[in-house]
């Protein structure tokens, strides 16, 4: 019986091999060959060239800023939601998912209407006599776009993790004489750590690799590593270099996630 049941895991295993493992091997293959099909390390080493390294470092800077901002915005929010009744807060949580039914590109594009010069914010500033600034084409605009798009991915896991904390544990700590600060740092924060880990993962990875947000809000003056890789495939017609760069990026992400997960002692994400 148990053997039969194990077989149920097989179809997806085959699926994963066909559509996850083999595709990754393809990236490895292309990344390690040149146009003539000969083996080379050049495409992988190309990440160290100034133009690629510059883009990677800028992407890192922006995605780390975005992750930190998301965390700082979401944690208080999740705490507030925890303090409310289940019903009310699940309604509010739903309001966080709701924007996702509005297309991702359209939502980001809407920021152009708000931020561009001649846009709404610009007109308001103009009328109030405040000096006008155009954010489009700056790093700030890109961080803003990232935070806007990925914030729900931080709020949801944090909320789930905080909801799982037993109120009795907190009460016990209080009974034993812990003050608010101690309760937060000794109880709530460590217990919500799995939520933080999965939230950080779900915000950091897409913001590190995005090419859409920078394309839309960066006036195409700002090239992130995602733009570089996308363009190697879509316009430069150099799949070898593109694969080499994505291979490095992928390993970088996997290593940083492994490090992060090392600190998540439960070992099981609580993303949803």
């Amino acid at each position, binding site marked *: 019986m148990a053997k039969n049941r194990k077989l149920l895991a097989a179809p997806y295993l085959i699926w994963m091999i066909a559509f996850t493992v083999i595709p990754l091997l393809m990236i490895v293959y292309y990344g390690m060959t040149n146009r003539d099909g000969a083996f080379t390390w050049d495409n992988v080493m190309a990440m160290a060239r100034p*133009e690629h390294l510059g*883009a990677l470092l800028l992407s890192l800077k922006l995605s780390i800023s975005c992750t930190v901002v998301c965390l700082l915005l979401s944690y208080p929010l999740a705490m507030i939601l925890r303090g409310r009744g289940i019903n009310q807060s699940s309604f509010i949580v739903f309001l966080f998912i709701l924007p996702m039914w509005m297309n991702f590109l359209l939502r980001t594009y809407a920021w152009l209407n708000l931020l561009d010069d001649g846009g709404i914010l610009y007109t308001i500033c103009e009328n109030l006599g405040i000096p006008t600034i155009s954010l489009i084409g700056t790093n700030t605009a890109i961080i803003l776009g990232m935070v806007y798009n990925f914030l729900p991915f931080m709020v949801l896991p944090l909320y789930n993790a905080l909801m799982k904390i037993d109120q009795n544990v907190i009460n016990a700590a209080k009974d034993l004489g812990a003050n608010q600060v101690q309760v937060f740092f000794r109880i709530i924060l460590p217990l919500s750590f799995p939520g933080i880990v999965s939230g950080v993962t779900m915000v950091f990875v897409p913001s590190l690799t995005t090419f859409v947000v920078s394309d839309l809000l960066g*006036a195409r003056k700002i*090239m992130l590593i995602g733009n570089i890789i996308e363009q190697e495939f879509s*316009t430069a*017609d150099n799949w070898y270099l593109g694969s080499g760069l994505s291979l490095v990026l992928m390993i970088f992400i996997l290593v940083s996630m492994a490090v992060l997960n090392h600190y998540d002692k439960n070992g099981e994400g609580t993303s949803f």
Partner: protein
Amino acid sequence: MKRFAVLGIVIIMISAVLAGCNGGTGSPFAAEMENQVQEETRAASYPNGIVKVFNWGEYIDESLIQQFEREYGIQVIYDTFTTNEEMYPKIAANPSLYDVICPSDYMIEKMIQNGLLQKIDWTKVPNIKNMDQLCMERVQDFDPGNQYTVPYTWGTVGILYNKKMVTTPIDSWSVLWDETYANNMIMQDSVRDAFMVALKLLGYSCNSTDENELQEAMQLLKEQKPLVKAYAIDEVRDKMINDSAALGVIYSGEYLYCHEENEDLAYVVPKEGSNLWFDGWVITSEAQNVENAHKWLDFLCRAESAYANFEYITYATPNEAAKEMIDPEYLNDPGVFATEERMDKCEIYKYLGMEMEDMYYELWKQVKAPEVSIFGWNPFAEEETE
């Protein structure tokens, strides 16, 4: 959680009803079945099969597509691209993906060289007689013997400027390096056009293959970057119309439309010379609907189609018969239909080979990629000064 689920299902139902407005392609909930149904309805209304068209964005009067479908009983599968460079890899990976494509001169040359195109059977395109002979001759520059290309539009690259926002006369590419217009100019975001501007300003050919010349051009473009408000291709038009920049590098074909939307906009081909370009329709080597592709080409060569297209996209047409219908005011506007003299100052792009292409792209990436900066420290810059 249950509530969410119920909600989700209701949403799907509502959306499906919404989508149901989309006529025949109604209810089946599996993509396979959906395909089948589409095929059946298609067979009914399009007895002569399909033709797969790959064109620039907003580069045809869309009513022409419907007219073609009705008249010939052929369904048009229509897709668009933004740059030649973006189109090429898709076709190179699978030449049967589309039947007819509309690339530019140097890209047609590249595709011919790489065997991605097939010769046109001119007996099936009788309307080619409408074409301007002079234009057909110039096309031989990249398509010797006129074997592959049906010319569609042509023009120059120049500067579109807002008369109200500029203070100096605009007649040189050098204004694009003028600090007075800092953060007030829009630069072309395609490799060849961007390098053309810098190479011409330096007095070189826009088909340069000399590494030193290209390095110089790259440095120049790098210097320009802080002054540029945005790199753009199709958005140049809307931005200029909305007064959001004083200068923009643009294709001559956009000028008429821009001028009609915003009277202050004027177009100039700088004195250093520029690029003369042609876009033309070609048939891919492994096209599956060759017969229909020829019909598409012939249809677009009709004087009426070319005229409708001119009215809609405002790009100069090489169709002599259509020109008779066009308002002489436009025909005599050198911004729209460049004069012989102006054309002679300009150069057509050539395909420079894979290696040169990689080099152009590599240099362009160096222009656009951010500087390496580790908390403001750039190890590469230091190496240079040492």
